[in-house]
């Protein structure tokens, strides 16, 4: 068996394309975007749960009487929608503050400034 040792699968033109690739292709998602995603997504799930529990027990139409601009809650769909965004806003603020606190916490191993 003295034939040359081929790499398997055989290197093709396609692999050559890839080898030419620069090390860093442009990032599609800057860290700020990831932070945003980390804040928005869990709070989205939490808001979904909160909306479900809230409106399982409370009919948005029952809130119409006590809502300030009462036509706002004149339809249930509006009630659900506004309720969801209300909860999302609240939970996103909490997530955002947690992220901020966690990311600005100086670890004990850091050099004192």
């Amino acid at each position: 068996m003295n034939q040359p040792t081929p790499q398997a699968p055989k290197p093709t033109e396609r692999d050559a394309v890839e080898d030419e690739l620069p090390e860093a292709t442009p990032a599609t998602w800057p860290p700020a975007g990831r932070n945003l995603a980390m804040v928005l997504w869990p709070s989205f799930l939490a808001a979904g749960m909160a909306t479900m529990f809230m409106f399982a027990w409370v009919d948005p139409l029952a809130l119409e009487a006590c809502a300030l601009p009462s036509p706002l809650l004149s339809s249930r769909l509006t009630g659900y929608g506004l309720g969801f965004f209300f909860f999302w806003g609240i939970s996103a603020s909490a997530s955002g503050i947690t992220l901020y606190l966690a990311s600005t916490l100086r670890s004990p191993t850091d050099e004192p400034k």
Partner: protein
Amino acid sequence: MTHANDAAPAESYYAKHHKIYPREVKGRFARLRTIAVFALLGLYYLLPWMNWNGRQAILFDLPARQFHLFGLVMWPQDFIFLTLLLVIAGLTLFFSTAMAGRLWCGFACPQTVWTDVFLWMERAIEGDRARRLKLDRAPWTLQKLLRKGGKQLAWITFALWTGFTFVGFFTPIRSLLPSALAFQLGPWETFWSLFYGFATYGNAGYLREQVCKYMCPYARFQSAMFDKDTLVITYDARRGEPRGSRPRGVDARSRGQGDCIDCKACVQVCPTGIDIREGLQYECISCAACIDACDSVMDQMQSPLGLIRFTTQHALDGKATQLLRPRVIVYGTILALLCVAFVVSLSLRKPLAMDVLRDRSTLYRELQDANGEQWFENAYELRVMNKDSVAHHYLLTVAGLEGLTVDTAGTQLEAGPGEADSIPVRLRAPGSSAHGSRPVQFMLQQVEGNQSTVTEKSRFIAP
């Protein structure tokens, strides 16, 4: 090969992100995933079009506050069933994770499933991995514009249809389609279909593996459910190392090598861009693409398959894999109990419910009958909910005070299928028995069928 684990700049937690171009892979797990995609998305896109007794089979009718699940009508009062169902779904996820790792991630998660479909469209229009790499680096030409534009058109159309279908679970889809085509959807219907469509487009078209890596909580905590008997995708380092190239059909051991020929096929097919040979990583979504890729290479090399395979840590260490471990037994027992509880409580569910509201405007009314005797009258509003799929008649009786009567005595109340009717009733009690605030009971009995009864409490108020 670019890699996601490059050293991060000091000011950021994150590694530099590189766009990942997963190579297409064929094999038994790829087939399995295709089947999963068709089954799950088939259910998603077709279920709203299914009818049951002349009504959409699955309709979460939020404006009417009723859920229709085939013949069943669920009310807000039945929320416990939804809660139970969610707990059961969560436990099923825990149980399957303990048994077989991240099967959910690799084969059933909407993120994976929709990403697969978006990748298929990308592949069909922009070509395979090498073509896509080339196209992305090429200058803008008409050809590139057409391919990129075509892909966007396919993605957007598909995403819009997905958003529309989502709303179709909440608004009857057969009436939704004509109004969507005429651009006459209600504001919230428009908003939610665009919202869901946009989320699908963004998550499946662009974010892809980053959703799993940066956004998904399950991806982070699933390892807590793992033990050494959990099925995971593993590279058999003992068999594979030291890696290196060799001629086809040559025994690696005779050259002092391991079976891995370092072809990097496993890395190229990975949708999250990791190298499984570096060991179990939380980015791995257990999609088994690397198993298919490695098996096909091992096949070509005439080496035994399974250098990368689904196995357990114990099996890899040459120990026996235990199926029944405490965590499996605990998850399994709780799951089984909850399933039984769900089925039993659903079958015992009363097809009838009632709310009693006191009339808030007047506490009581004072009356006198023909004999000059003093009576007190209280007004209430009953909300009678017929959860059955046929109309029913009901008889109302009251108790709690001597001589208490109800003005609907002897008449039958009626409620259509899935209807909630408000019925004003007045109770009267003689002055001899009514003093202050006393508890009273309303009993509603269905005339037909199993004659189910509900009892609700309220209060009767007199001076």
